């Protein structure tokens, strides 16, 4: 009974002594988190990691930028501080037994773009530049979509042209071909308008497949003007019961070259080689 009381008393004594003892041994890390101009950075997260044991602790700085990490074992630590809008800062500190180490932490990049030799014109963008890019992209998207839609009546008018231009053609065949050709022409010129009117971006050179895409426009562009003119002549000759003759005979070949150049222009920006 006596022995039990003794053990109990010793246990209570140890419990009472352990906290002050720990407080005496433990180190404390404290300080202020500021930015480069010296202003406090509130609510920054400060974490420490013991480089030997790997044990870590974390706290959050208060609204005045003050942080406090008590009860740390003496030793070498890696201190990491982070806050929104700042790159994480990591530093090392050695804590000694029973001492309070004050480490003021400065957030913010040490280096600036000027240090790298970039001029202001290179580093500063503008809403106008972005608006020009947005308008260009928007117009080219419309160009692309209408251009793709135009493919259907172009192909259909080439196919119907075979029936419209034959020996035994009906007026229905010719009118169908004419309607499809007109739809193809309208969509083509609408698409071309968006490509031509899309804003140019200063200082850019045309490189890659888009060069071929643009070059082919010099074939299908005039072709799309010439084809309906020749088609109209051929249509009149046929409607008058005549055989297609003279310059109108070129309508078919010109249309095929135009449609081929148009298809190649689409493929030029769709396939990679």
């Amino acid at each position, binding site marked *: 009974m006596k022995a039990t009381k003794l053990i109990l008393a010793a246990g209570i004594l140890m419990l009472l002594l352990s906290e002050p003892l720990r407080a005496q041994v433990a180190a404390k890390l404290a300080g202020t988190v500021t930015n480069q101009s010296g202003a406090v950075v509130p609510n920054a997260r400060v974490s420490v990691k013991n480089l030997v044991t790997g044990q870590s602790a974390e706290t959050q700085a208060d609204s005045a930028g003050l942080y406090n990490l008590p009860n740390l074992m003496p030793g070498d630590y*890696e201190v990491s501080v982070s806050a929104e*809008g700042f*790159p*994480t*800062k*990591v*530093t*090392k500190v050695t804590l000694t037994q029973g001492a309070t180490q004050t480490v003021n932490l400065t957030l913010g*990049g*040490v*280096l*600036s*773009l000027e*240090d*790298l*030799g*970039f001029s202001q014109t*290179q*580093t*500063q*963008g*503008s*809403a*106008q*530049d*972005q*608006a*020009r*890019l*947005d308008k*260009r*992209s928007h117009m*080219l998207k419309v160009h*692309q*979509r209408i251009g*793709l839609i135009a493919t259907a009546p172009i192909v259909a008018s080439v196919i119907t042209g075979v029936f419209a231009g034959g020996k035994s053609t009906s007026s229905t065949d010719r009118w169908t071909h004419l309607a499809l050709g007109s739809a193809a022409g309208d969509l083509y010129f609408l698409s071309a308008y968006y490509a031509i009117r899309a804003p140019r*971006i200063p200082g*850019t*050179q*045309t*490189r*890659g*497949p*888009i060069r071929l*895409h643009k070059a082919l426009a010099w074939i299908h562009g005039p072709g799309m003007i010439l084809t309906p003119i020749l088609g109209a002549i051929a249509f009149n000759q046929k409607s008058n019961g005549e055989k297609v003759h003279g310059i109108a005979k070129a309508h078919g070949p010109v249309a095929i070259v135009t449609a081929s150049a148009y298809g190649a222009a689409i493929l030029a*920006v*769709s*396939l*990679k080689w």
Partner: protein
Amino acid sequence: MKQKILITFLFLALTTFAQTDSQWVLSQSTLTYHVSHPLHQTDGVSHAARGKGVCHAGQCDFLIAVPVKSFDSGDSNRDLHMLQVTRGGEFPMVMVRTSLPEDASASTTIHADLEVQFAGQAVEYKQVPFEQAKQGNETKISGTIPATLSDFKIDPPSLLTIAVKNEIPVRVEMTWRREK
């Protein structure tokens, strides 16, 4: 005599202090982003990055920056489209900041916490592994930043109305030169 000793001491002290600070300069770089599209696998390359690292008290702060429009995918139309979707007109630079302990240059692999500022957004990539190899006074660093379009709130660009994949890993190959 005392004055001479004092001057010598001051000189030595100043030299010692000066030696504690050093800096790194980016001498060569190749940054390559990769875009996947059902019709295309595209790489955009830039050699225009500039960078510096300033070391003090065992810690080095690095800044690497590259103009968005310097990336060349071999097609000016695509590059302008990328410039537009990444809001390069308004935010013309990509900036990468990182902080590393000075002794990190001794190991063959470094894990860097990167803060990337791009397209008006700041995104952190934690513990990105980079291989490093020393060659004389120079150190070659290579690795891949696992960037995605959604990280930077970028709408995926599309070709023939089909959007590209969200992942745009950026391969980094850099040569750094240490200067005292």
